[in-house]
C-alpha cells in the first residue's frame, strides 16, 4: 500500500520542493514592517546550534538578527542559519493531516487521521505481534520530543523496535567513547580548541559541515597552534593546514595505528598518565607494533615522513586536541577508528586538562541531546542501558509501570529497514527522518517502504519518504515548540517557541500524546507543555550519566546554556569531562581498546576500481527536506556534482561539466563532473542531499559497523564512464 500515490512530478507540483526566496509578504512590502518581537533561540539545523534571534510578526518568522551575546557562535551564522527563517510560511508547509487512498493524498480532519493511525497500529499488532510495528525518531527533535519518542514507542505502541536517524550520525563515536570513558559526550567545551598547541582534525570537513567551528580553528592558529588535517579532499580547512595527510578512503585506522606506532616506538608516550589513569595499554602497544610508517604509507597513501611528523607534533605538544566526525565514523570500522583516535590521546596524556582532548563533532541539530534519553533502540533516559535491571527499575518507577512492561532492545535504524524488507516488520511510524535519502542503498529502501502494510509519518513538509505514507500528521517546525537541545559541546540550550504551528498543523508533542490516548495509553502521556515533559525527563535521567535533574529552562537562559551532567539545581554544570584523567567508568580509569584492521565492506577491484565517498555541502542540511526548499541555499549549490581529479578524469575522457555515469555494485546515477585537483585521484566525491536519480545513496552499500550499526557511507567501490547522452 506504500507505493507512491501519484507520479513524482505530480507530487512535486503539489508538495514541492518549491523555492522560497523572500520573507512572508515579499522583500519590498509587508516584510519591511517591524517585528513584534525578537525571540532569542537557536538554529534548527546542525549540531553547532548557533544562537540566533528570530523576528516575529503575525505568528510568522519574518527575519532574523544575529545574537552576538551567545557565547558559542557570537552572532556568527552559516547560510543555512541565515535562511532558516524562510520555512515559516513556506508554501510547501503541511497545514492539515493527509490521508491517502489508491490515487491521491487528501486533507483529513485530525480525528479521522489519528483514529486511522491508532487503529492500523493495533490491527497490525493483533495480526502479527507487537514488534511488527516499528518507530523512527530523529535527532533534529528537541530533547523532550526525543524522550517522548522512546517512551511512546515502548509504552504506547508497545514495540521494542524504536531507533532514530542519529544511527546514521553519531553512534560510532558514541560506542567508542562509552568503551573508553564510560560516557558518550564530547569531553571538551569548544572554548578549549583555541588553547591547543596542536589540532588534529581527521574525517571532518569543518568548513562545510560545522562552519562555526572554523572560527575556533583559526583562533587556535592565531595563538600559534599547528593544524594537522587528514582527509581525502583538500577542503577549505585542509588547504590551510600546516600538515595535510591525504588519507585514502577507509584507511584512517591504518594511519592512526601508524601514528601510535611511531609514538610508542620512540618512547614519546606519557608514561605517568598511562600508569595512573588508564588500563589496557600493553595490549594496544602490541597491536600497533606491526604498523610501521612504511606499511601504513602503502595502505593510506600518506607519505611515511608525514606520519612520523604528525605523531611527533601531537606527542610533543603540551596541549593537543583531536577532532573527528563522519569521515571517520561512517565506516564499517567506525568504532575502531574513534577508538584509535582516543588511544593516541590517552597515550600522550592529552585529556582532562584545558586545551586537551578528543572530541566528535556532532552533526545533527540535537545529535547530542537526541541520543541521551531513550529513542535509541537499547537506551533509557539519562544514557542508561535498557538491559540494565537497575536502569529499568528506575525508569519504570518514574513512568508508573512495572519494569517487565519495558520491552527489551530492538533493532537499529538500518536493521529496521532490512526487517521491513524481509517482511518481519509490517508497519512504521516515522517522525523527523527521511530514510529514502539518508539510508544507504536507496533502491532497497524504496522497495522496503513499498512493502509496508501501514506507514504513518509525522512531519512538517512532505519529504520523499513521506510521499510513501498512508497518513501524514502535520507536525511542527523547531520554532513552534519550546524545548531543550544539546549542542556539539554538551551545552544544553533552550529552543524558544516563536510562533504557533500554522493552519491546522499541531505540535509534535500534542500529536504523540493524542495518539497515545487513542492507543488507550493516554494516562502515561498527560503532557500539555514541553515543561511538563522536561520535568519528567529530569526525574527519569536523574542519577544516570546524562543527568539533567538540575537543568531547567530558567537556568539555561540565565547561564546561556548548561553542560550536563548537572545533577542538582545548584550544580554549575560540567563543561569539561574527565578532569584529572578520571573517566566515568567505576574504577575511574580511561580504557585503551585494541583495534582490528579490516577492509571496507565494498572493496575496490578490477571492475570497480575507484573509491566513492559521500558527504555534505555547506548550503544543504542532511536529506534536504528543509534546505532544498530555500531558494538562496539552492542557488549556492543547485544539484550534486561528481568531484573528480583531472588525472582520473582524463583516463575516461571526462572534461569539466561532462555528464558521468557512476556505477556501483547496486545502482548507477549520472551527474555532471566537477574536475578539480582538490581530491585524491583514486577517489570521487558526491554530496548526498538529493533524491531520485541524483541520490548518492542509491550507490552506497548497507554494510554496518558490527557494534555501532552505522552504515559505511564514506567508502564504496565504483566505476565511471562518460555518459552516452550529453546535455
Amino acid at each position, binding site marked *: 500500500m506504500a507505493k507512491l500515490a501519484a507520479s513524482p512530478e505530480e507530487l512535486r507540483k503539489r508538495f514541492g520542493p518549491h523555492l522560497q526566496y523572500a520573507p512572508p509578504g515579499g522583500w519590498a512590502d509587508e516584510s519591511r514592517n517591524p517585528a513584534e518581537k525578537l525571540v532569542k533561540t537557536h538554529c534548527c539545523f546542525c549540531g553547532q546550534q548557533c544562537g540566533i534571534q528570530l523576528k516575529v510578526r503575525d505568528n510568522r518568522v519574518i527575519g532574523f538578527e544575529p545574537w552576538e551575546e551567545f557565547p558559542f557562535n557570537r552572532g556568527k*551564522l552559516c547560510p543555512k542559519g*541565515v535562511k532558516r527563517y524562510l520555512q515559516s510560511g513556506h508554501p510547501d508547509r503541511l497545514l492539515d493531516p493527509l490521508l491517502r487512498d489508491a490515487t491521491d493524498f487528501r486533507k483529513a480532519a485530525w480525528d479521522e487521521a489519528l483514529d486511522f493511525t491508532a487503529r492500523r497500529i493495533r490491527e497490525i499488532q493483533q495480526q502479527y505481534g507487537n514488534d511488527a510495528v516499528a518507530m523512527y525518531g530523529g535527532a533534529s527533535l528537541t530533547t523532550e520530543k526525543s524522550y517522548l519518542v522512546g517512551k511512546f514507542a515502548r509504552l504506547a505502541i508497545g514495540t521494542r523496535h524504536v531507533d532514530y536517524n542519529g544511527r546514521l550520525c553519531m553512534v560510532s563515536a558514541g560506542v567508542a567513547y562509552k568503551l573508553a570513558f564510560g560516557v558518550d559526550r564530547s569531553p571538551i567545551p569548544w572554548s578549549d580548541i583555541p588553547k591547543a598547541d596542536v589540532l588534529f582534525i581527521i574525517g571532518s570537513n569543518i568548513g562545510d559541515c560545522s562552519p562555526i567551528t572554523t572560527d575556533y580553528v583559526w583562533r587556535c592558529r592565531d595563538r600559534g597552534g599547528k593544524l594537522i588535517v587528514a582527509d581525502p579532499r583538500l577542503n577549505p580547512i585542509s588547504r590551510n593546514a600546516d600538515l595535510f595527510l591525504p588519507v585514502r578512503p577507509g584507511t584512517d585506522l591504518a594511519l592512526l595505528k601508524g601514528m601510535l606506532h611511531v609514538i610508542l616506538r620512540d618512547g614519546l608516550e606519557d608514561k605517568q598518565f598511562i600508569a595512573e589513569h588508564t588500563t589496557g595499554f600493553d595490549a594496544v602497544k602490541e597491536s600497533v607494533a606491526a604498523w610501521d610508517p612504511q606499511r601504513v604509507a602503502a595502505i593510506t597513501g600518506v607519505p611515511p615522513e608525514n606520519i612520523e611528523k604528525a605523531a611527533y607534533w601531537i606527542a610533543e605538544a603540551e596541549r593537543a586536541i583531536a577532532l573527528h566526525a563522519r569521515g571517520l565514523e561512517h565506516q564499517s570500522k567506525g568504532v575502531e577508528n574513534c577508538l584509535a583516535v582516543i588511544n593516541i590521546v590517552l597515550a600522550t596524556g592529552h585529556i582532562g586538562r584545558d586545551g586537551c582532548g578528543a572530541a566528535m563533532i556532532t552533526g545533527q541539530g540535537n545529535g547530542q541531546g537526541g541520543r541521551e534519553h531513550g529513542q535509541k533502540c537499547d537506551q533509557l533516559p539519562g544514557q542508561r542501558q535498557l538491559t540494565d535491571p537497575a536502569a529499568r527499575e528506575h525508569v519504570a518507577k518514574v513512568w508508573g509501570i512495572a519494569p517487565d512492561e519495558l520491552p527489551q532492545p530492538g533493532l537499529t535504524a538500518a536493521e529496521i529497514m532490512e526487517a521491513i524488507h524481509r517482511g518481519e516488520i509490517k508497519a512504521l511510524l516515522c517522525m523527523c527522518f527521511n530514510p529514502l535519502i539518508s539510508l544507504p542503498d536507496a533502491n532497497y529502501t524504496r522497495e522496503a517502504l513499498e512493502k509496508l502494510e501501514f506507514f504513518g509519518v509525522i512531519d512538517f513538509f512532505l519529504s520523499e519518504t513521506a510521499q510513501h505514507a498512508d497518513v501524514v500528521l502535520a507536525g511542527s517546525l523547531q520554532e513552534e515548540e519550546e524545548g531543550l537541545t544539546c549542542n556539539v559541546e554538551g551545552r544544553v540550550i533552550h529552543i524558544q517557541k516563536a510562533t504557533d504551528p500554522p493552519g491546522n498543523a499541531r505540535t509534535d508533542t500534542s500529536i504523540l500524546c493524542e495518539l497515545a490516548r487513542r492507543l488507550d495509553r493516554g494516562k502515561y502521556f498527560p503532557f500539555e507543555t514541553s515543561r511538563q515533559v522536561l520535568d519528567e525527563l529530569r526525574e527519569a535521567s536523574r542519577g544516570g550519566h546524562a543527568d539533567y535533574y538540575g537543568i531547567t529552562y530558567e537556568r539555561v537562559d540565565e547561564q546561556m546554556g548548561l553542560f550536563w551532567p548537572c545533577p542538582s539545581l545548584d550544580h554549575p554544570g560540567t563543561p569539561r569531562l574527565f578532569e584529572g584523567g578520571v573517566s566515568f567508568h567505576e574504577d575511574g580509569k580511561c580504557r585503551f581498546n585494541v583495534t582490528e584492521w579490516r577492509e571496507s565492506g565494498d572493496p575496490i577491484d578490477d571492475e570497480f576500481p575507484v573509491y566513492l565517498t559521500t558527504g555534505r555541502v555547506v*548550503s544543504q542540511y542532511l536529506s534536504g527536506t528543509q534546505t532544498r526548499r530555500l531558494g538562496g*541555499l539552492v542557488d549556492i549549490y543547485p544539484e550534486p556534482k561528481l568531484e573528480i581529479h*583531472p588525472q582520473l578524469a582524463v583516463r575516461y575522457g571526462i572534461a569539466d561539466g561532462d555528464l558521468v555515469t557512476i556505477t556501483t555494485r547496486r545502482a548507477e546515477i549520472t551527474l555532471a563532473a566537477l574536475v*578539480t585537483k*582538490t581530491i585524491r585521484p583514486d577517489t570521487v566525491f558526491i554530496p548526498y542531499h538529493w533524491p531520485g536519480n541524483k541520490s548518492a545513496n542509491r550507490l552506497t552499500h548497507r554494510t554496518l559497523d558490527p557494534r555501532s550499526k552505522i552504515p559505511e557511507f564514506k567508502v564504496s567501490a565504483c566505476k565511471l564512464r562518460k555518459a552516452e547522452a550529453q546535455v
Partner: protein
Amino acid sequence: MFGYEFYVDPSRCIGCQSCVEACEECETHRGVSMINFDYLDRHEMAGTAAYVCWHCEEPTCAMVCPADAIKVGEDGVVRSALKPRCIACSNCVLACPFGIPKVIPEYEQMMKCDMCYDRTSVGKRPMCATVCPSQALSYVKPEEIARRREEPENVFVFGNQSVKTRVNMMMPPGTDAVSIDVVDYMWEGHLGQAWK
C-alpha cells in the same frame, strides 16, 4: 561604530556564502546582495574570496561619475549612488578597479556596499562581518586584528594607479602592497609588447 575597522581575509574564507545570503536581509537594499563572491579557481583549489566595497579614500567610482551621484560620508564610507541623481550610466561599474558597483536595472540605480550604514550608525556591526563564521570578513578593533598571523594592508597598486582604501586586506606577514597588474596575467604572444 567608533574604533572599528573592516578586514577581509580570503585565506580564512570557507566559501559558505553566508555573507551573500545575509547581505540581502539589510533594510536599505532588501533582496539584493552587495557582496562580491568568487571561487578563485575551483579546478585548482577550494579557495574562495568574499569581499565588500573597499571604500577608497579617493574613490574612482565617484571620480568618473558624470552625475556627481556618488558621495563619501564623514565616516569615510562610500555610499550607493544618490537615487535622484544617478543616471545608471555604468561608468562607475566600468571604472572601479575592484569591480564592486552594480547597476540594478529595475531600480535604474548604482548600488553597492555601504558598510551597513543603517547598522553601524546605531552601534551594530555590518551584517556580513557579523555572521561570517570563519573570520574572512571581520569588523573589529585594530588591537584585535593585531593578534592574527596575517597583517592588514590597505594600499593597492593597479598599473599606475595607487589606491588607498578604508577596508583592509589581510596579507601574509612581510607583504607591502597588493599588486594586481593585469599585464602580469596576459598572454604575451597575443598583444605583444604594445602594453609595455
